[in-house]
């Protein structure tokens, strides 16, 4: 656990802010793979998992983009420069990329604050010289995230909102269906989807890609206590999301009976997943 002063809090969208810190253990975080997460301690409040949405700059900084949906996230969004928070990690397995960019296309499918997990991965994909298509969904224009960063990292960014207030009207899976529709089976073999968002959205992506010949990696969420694979509270059909994930391959996701159906409450009880978590 590294306890640090918040170096900046950047409002991103309605109820969403990016909390910036400057970790001292730089080597540790330089080795981070996009898709990995940290456990964030808000002293006196809670400790919650957060994807790393920004990494780099000078002084070397780490950003977490937080949607205010409850006590801990509200406290995080309300932080001010100089406040203390604790960080441990990075934990888990991040997104993997094709070894050589040659002929590959990477499609980012991001919904809501799930973009906090995909943005760094898609930037990395571009950095590696992969052709990228960024499909970004949000409820409305006011909650659309990272416009500048998307557009700097790819020449092919497509937005969609539930209400049409930005980009097209509809769901991000509509964009995905259109994007993959025309692909030949050869192209499909060299297409990789990276996705994060509300679980119902991920279920749609799964169903859409099942048997399509297209690879996909899903960033999943479950209730986390330890973050390091010992407590089993993030258990999802025998996978511990914190250690075996949070990024899983399509082949794994297809075998997760609980995906989209159940999660575990604080006592470990299996409870139905009522629509999306946020």
């Amino acid at each position: 656990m590294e306890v640090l002063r918040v170096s900046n809090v950047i409002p991103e969208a309605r109820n969403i802010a990016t909390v910036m810190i400057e970790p001292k253990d730089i080597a540790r975080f330089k080795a981070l793979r996009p898709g990995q997460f940290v456990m964030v301690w808000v002293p006196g409040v809670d400790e919650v998992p957060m994807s790393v949405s920004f990494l780099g700059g000078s002084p070397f900084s780490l950003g977490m983009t937080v949607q205010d949906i409850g006590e801990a996230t509200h406290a995080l969004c309300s932080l001010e420069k100089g406040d203390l928070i604790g960080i441990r990690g990075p934990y888990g397995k991040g997104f993997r990329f094709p070894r050589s960019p040659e002929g590959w296309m990477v499609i980012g499918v991001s919904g809501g604050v799930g973009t906090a997990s995909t943005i760094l991965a898609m930037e990395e994909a571009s950095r590696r010289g992969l052709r990228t298509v960024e499909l970004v969904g949000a409820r409305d224009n006011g909650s659309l995230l990272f416009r500048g960063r998307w557009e700097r990292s790819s020449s092919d960014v497509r937005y969609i909102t539930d209400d049409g207030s930005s980009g097209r009207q509809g769901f991000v899976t509509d964009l995905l269906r259109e994007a993959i529709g025309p692909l030949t089976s050869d192209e499909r073999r060299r297409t990789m989807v990276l996705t994060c968002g509300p679980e119902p959205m991920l279920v749609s992506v799964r169903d859409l890609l099942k048997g399509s010949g297209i690879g996909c990696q899903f960033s999943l969420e479950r209730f986390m206590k330890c973050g390091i694979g010992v407590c089993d509270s993030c258990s999802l059909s025998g996978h511990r999301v914190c250690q075996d994930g949070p990024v899983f391959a399509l082949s794994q996701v297809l075998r997760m009976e609980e995906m989209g159906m159940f999660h575990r409450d604080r006592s470990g009880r299996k409870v139905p997943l009522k629509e999306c978590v946020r």
Partner: protein
Amino acid sequence: MADDATVPDLSVEFAGIKLSNPLLLASGIADETGASMARAVKEGAGGVVTKSLSIQPRQGHPNPCIVEVEGGLINAMGLPNPGIEGFREEIEHYKKKTRGRAPIIASVFGSSIEEYVEASTLAEGLGVDGLELNGSCPNAKGLGLQFGQDPVVIIELVREVKARTTLPVLFKLTPNTHDIVTLARAVQEGGADGIVAINTLQAMKIDIMTARPVLTNTTGGLSGPAIRPVGVRCVFEMARAPDIRIPIMGVGGISTWEDVIEYMMAGATAVQVGTSISWGNLNVFGEMKKGLRAFLMGTGRRSIKDITGLAAGVGH
């Protein structure tokens, strides 16, 4: 079959429970769901111990309930569990997946002797292969630990449980005592079939920037390699006591096959693996099995059973 004669035998029997190898998943570690426990077996575990279960579900302590320190971690989960009845489907799932290949031991606790007894009989009803009475969790007031520090209470607790179950009963001891041998004698006198040691050491971490204890519960239990020398000493002391005849299962800081051998030489018949799966992943079990076999071959031994107590002078 003829070839097999040269492959060392890792099987052991602990308090009547037959295990294909001496490595069990420790209670509270990646064992909140049937699927996770089955996965540990797939990775090589010879058996599993469930998360400690109570009659009623418990949420445990709010986060943070874990903090990493040099050589291990401190946890104060606070015994979260879905309740024994809520765990039924997990056991069923486990049994379906493992088909009797690896016994499952239910860890239970309560806030009174009566609750321990009721929890034990309920757990027996789930079809488990043994019971582990958690008399040593330092993280929940009034539960666990207070039933495991007083020999008189231990004797009564074990006796009452034994009277109501036909399953092998193990008792898990705390190292937070000045005399673990006396506690072990009480466990035996109560009629238990085996001893499990050790649970975590009471510990804490204070963050100096915020001047506050990191864990919501303030204090917690230290586990991991840091406590291994304490666990080995506890097992050794008990194994060396000539009047303690029930078998001992060693736990605490085991992360390599060498650690397994160390515990077994100290006197353990089997061991449990906990914290180290957080860095070694669940495949530590497979790695350990490989190492144990190589060690036995290298030292010309046929069976892992020959290791137990080698350094404790047991049987000398």
